[in-house]
Structures are given as C-alpha cells and as structure tokens.
C-alpha cells in the first residue's frame, strides 16, 4: 500500500470510529487534496466532514483549534508545509499554550498534516521541512514517520491524541509502497523510536523522508563491507525518545544523524546535543556526524535540488568515514 493510501485509510478508519473527527483544508473535497490524500473521502463522508475551505490558512487553523477546544477532533490538511507560516499564531501561541495558560483546563485535539520536503521540482517556497520550529515549542507533538505502516499507525495515534500534533508527510514519498496492517485497531505509540535495523558497528539516527535512504545505505555498506549499521528511526520528534537513541549510541560508540531539513538548527542538531550531554557521550569513539539538507533555499533545477539533500551515496560515505574513524 502507498503512503497516500495509508493516510486515507487512517483518516477514514478514525472518522468511522468517531463522529467528531473530520478533515478540513483547501481542496480536500472533490479535488481529493493537493496530493490526493483524500481521494474518495468526500463520497463516503460528505461535505460537512470533508470540508473544503477558502484559501485562509489563518482561519483554517484557528477554526480547527476552536472546534477542537469545544469537542470536535479536526484534521487539517495544510498541504505544502511552507504554507504553515500563515498558521503560526494559531499553532504556536494558541494551540500549544492554551491548556497550560488556563492551568490545565481544556484540550485541543487537532492534527496538522503537512507535506514537507522537496523532490518534486517546486523550488524554494514549496520544499521546506520545518519540523524543528515546532519541536522548539512546548505543548506540541511532532511526528515524522518514514514507512507506510508507520504513517498509518502514527496518524491514527495523532488523531486519537488529545493534543495538537504536527504530522509530517513527504511529498516525494506519497507513492512509496510498503506493507500496512489492515487492522483498524493498529495504532502505534507516539514518542517511541523504532530500531529499523539492528547493528553493532554504528548508529544512524534519522526520521521521515531520509529513513528510506538510510536503510538503503545501511544495506549497501553491509553487503559491500560487512558493516552492521543500527538504524534508529525516531518517528516521533517531540517528545523525543532519548532512551532508545542513547542506548544505541552506547552500544555502537559511533553515530551519524541524518535529516532532509536544512542543517543549521535542524532537528538532528537537537539529537546531537542530546547525545553530547548524555551518558552516551562517554561511549563515543568519534565525533557525532550530521548529514542534512544544505543551508540554501531549495533551487528549482532538479539536479541542484537533488544535490541539496543527503543521497544514499553520501550517507554511505559518512557511515564508512565513521566506521573507519576518518
């Protein structure tokens, strides 16, 4: 099943299960979503629950929050994550803080599904991965799965969670295929990393779009040089599963961190800092390496765009550099 279908399945199952759940956003209805992530849902759930909106990101996010405060459970299709800039007040100043400011009263169960990353030739205003911003804000959960099954299990968890969740999807991966449990009770825990591959030589921590490439690189270095890579897939960025990361680094003593977002102040920087201040530091036998998107706006030209994001080849090189202590 594709990521796209896993998303549709997750939302549809939750909407069948709970009449308070509904989807809103620009062109989610007859158009089926900018990325086809709600194709067919209008037919099943009708206009009230597959709710087309004006192009008004502020009102969309605000209405979602107000609806969530009063008993509904909205899912917002942000479409391109870049457009979330217009939702920042509602997400950061309102949704994240309201319960706290009110001394623990009220709750805001809302999911913002945002299509992150480049890879489709849409240039600098349609290619950003802005997850780090949201991990900086207490009161938000941030999820970035990298397989169709994790997408399904975590999107369902996000919808059932009673807090605002930023849910990253990757526009380059909507067609990515994988096994997906059909069980409507298949829900994954938020806040748990997943060891996608066990290994003793080196730890690679990643999430989201980069998981696929990391897995491929791990496979390649294993086949070519017998290196055993442990791949820690964070899946949830906030709250971060520090334990799993630290345990793995303690085991291997070497760590590479990979994300597609810009390197500077990207989320893997936080992971690096977390390792460097933890007990795992004492087990490190090499620098904590980062491989991330370049610090440039994403260029339109596809050769350049491709070069701005970690490739399987560069991930492989970095793994070998670590293993060979260069």
């Amino acid at each position, binding site marked *: 099943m594709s990521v796209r279908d896993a998303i549709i399945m997750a939302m549809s199952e939750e909407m069948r299960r709970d009449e308070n759940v509904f989807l809103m956003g620009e062109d989610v209805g007859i158009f089926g979503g900018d990325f086809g992530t709600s194709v067919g849902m209008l037919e099943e759930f009708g206009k009230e629950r597959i709710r087309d909106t004006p192009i008004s990101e502020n009102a969309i996010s*605000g209405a979602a929050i107000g609806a969530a405060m009063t008993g509904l459970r909205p899912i917002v299709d942000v479409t391109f994550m870049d457009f979330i800039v217009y939702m920042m007040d509602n997400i950061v100043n*309102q949704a994240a803080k309201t319960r706290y400011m009110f001394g623990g009263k009220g709750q805001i169960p809302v999911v913002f599904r945002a299509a992150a990353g480049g890879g489709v030739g849409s240039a600098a205003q349609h290619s950003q991965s802005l997850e780090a911003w949201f991990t900086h804000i207490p009161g938000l959960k941030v999820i970035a799965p990298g397989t169709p099954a994790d997408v399904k299990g975590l999107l369902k968890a996000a919808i059932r969670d009673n807090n605002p969740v930023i849910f990253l999807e990757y526009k380059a991966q909507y067609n990515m295929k994988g096994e997906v449990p059909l069980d409507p009770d298949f829900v994954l825990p938020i806040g748990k990393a997943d060891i996608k591959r066990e290994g003793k030589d080196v730890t690679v921590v990643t999430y989201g779009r980069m998981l696929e490439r990391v897995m491929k690189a791990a496979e390649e270095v294993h086949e070519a040089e017998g290196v055993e890579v442990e791949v820690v897939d964070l899946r949830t960025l906030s709250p971060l599963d520090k334990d799993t990361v630290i345990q793995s680094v303690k085991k291997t003593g070497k760590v590479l961190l990979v994300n597609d977002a810009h390197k500077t102040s990207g989320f893997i920087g936080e992971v690096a800092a977390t390792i460097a201040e933890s007990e795992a530091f004492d087990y490190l036998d090499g620098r904590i390496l980062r491989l991330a998107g370049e610090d440039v706006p994403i260029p339109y030209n596809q050769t350049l765009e491709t070069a701005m994001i970690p490739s399987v080849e560069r991930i492989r090189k970095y793994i070998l550099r670590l293993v060979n202590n260069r």
Partner: protein
Amino acid sequence: MAKTSSKKVTDISKEKLLEMHRSMLDIRNFDNKVNRLVKRGVVPGMTHFSIGEEAANVGAVAALEIGSDLITSNHRGHGQSIALGINLNEMMAEIMGKATGTCKGKGGSMHIADLDGGNLGANGIVGGGMGMAIGAALTQKIKKTGKIVVCFFGDGAVNEGTFHETLNMASIWKLPVIFYSINNMYGISTPISSVINIDYNYRRAASYGIPGHFIEDGNDLMAVYNKFEEIVKYVREGNGPVLVESITYRYLGHSTSDPGKYRTKEEVDEWKKKDPILRFEQYLLDNKLVTKKDIEAIEKASEDAVEESVKFALSSPEPTLESAFEDIFAP
C-alpha cells in the same frame, strides 16, 4: 449627563437590571482595585483595564444565555469575564499569580478563562481569539447545540488579517457567531481614525454579506443590551454571523504603564461625563426601580466582594515549582 435609552424597559425584570448594574460595579471596583495593587507592586505583569467600558461589556453579555453560550475575549478581558459571572476570588488570585487562581497562577490577567462558564479565554495576541471563536461556532452548528458564540475584540484588531479570514469563513458557513468590536477609539496610542480609511469598521460587514450593527453610544447600557438582544435572536435562529461595533472609552492608560501623551485630559474628562455606571444608576432611579439606599447597598456589596477577593488572593498559596511543569499536555 447623557441619558440611558429607556426603550423596552418593561421587558426586563428588575432583578436582571440590578444584576447588570452590579456587574458593572464589580468591573469598576475590581479594576480600580487591581490598578492600586499594580501601583503598590502587589500585581506583576501587564494588565489592561475595562474601566469606562462597563456598559459595552455587560450589555452584550447580559443578552446571552449565561453559562451556556460561549465567548472569546482579548487582552482587555476583565469586563467580559466578570460580566459572565466568573468567581472573583479566583480571578483576583490569578492576577496575583496564586495557586488558587482561575489558571493556577500560570495565565494572569491576559489569560483569564472560565471554560465551564462559557468563557473560552482572554488572549494576549490581538485577533488571537477570532479563529477560536469561529471554530467554537462550528462545533455548535455541527452539534446543533443552539448555543452561540460572541467574539470580543477592540477597534485596533480590525486591521489584522485574521479579522478578514474569520469573518469570511463564518459568513460562508453561516456560523452562529457575533463579532463584537468594542471601539474605544485607540489601539494603544493609535487613533482608529488614523488606521482605517472609512468612518466605522462595522461597515466592513458588507464585504462578507452579513449584517453590520452600530451602537453609537456604547456607554448606554440599555442601548447595548437592546441591540444585542435583537442580534442574539437573529444569530441563534441560524441566520449566520453578525458584526457589531460599539463606541466607548477607556479611562485609564492602555496598560499599566502608559504616559498617555496621545490624548488630552479634556478628552478623557469629556468621556467621564458619559459614565456608563452613573447613567445607569440614574436610569434605575428615574424609573423608580431602586432607591438611593438600594444603590448604596449594591455598591457596598460589590466593594465587599472585591475586598473579599483581595483577601482570598493574598492569603492564597503561591503555586509550587513543580506545578510549572504540569498541564502542558492533556492526558
């Protein structure tokens, strides 16, 4: 002194009229008290007072089903909270940052909320409550609760993009929400007349195909109340949103520190002649609804309640350090 409009006096019970008067007095006394506490350094932080704007607040809230209908408010939310019947002790404790406060001391003046009482909260962001208001209204419409939402904001907020987006969305979805702009003529130091190119903002209702109402004398409690009764009925009947604007004035500075150079003492004094509380008192007396003595008794009761709230707040414990780490996430 300007008169209170006496239309419909017979429709309203004496009890309700006295409640409204008491509400206005509570706002005035509460805020005067807080102001003194700020000056004495007992209250920290930024506080925005509703003094002078009592009628504009109480008249609107009194037309609602209190305890059932919903409101969102802004940084200047004391008036609305009190009008909606919040527990004054807890509100004062909140403003002093105490553990017994409405928000356990974590929110303060700008974040007073009373979810059970229908108050979805004050807001420190200009326009920050408008999205919530339409979302809350969407819930009422979908769940067919019959409840309506009043979204309070100032004159300055009308130039935020969220004003436009939320009014438009509410209009196309015919949501049960009243957008209520309390026009006190300034956003901090900026006269509203210098930041819009029309006379009054309520006219912008036309952009959304919804009714726009104007309450020229927002210090006339009955004028506010009567207009709101009509509007509340219209909205509750499912006709969609309405934009209302009332004119009033804040006696004090924008916030606790405000040199006030942007307006003259004469202007302030002129407005004090149109005091909403004195006028309503006169109205009650003129209509023989109360005696001077009754008035004094209400005044006394209000002052006592505020004193009581100060005592409660002062004797309340500070929040524990651990509590700072609680309440971020809902279980």
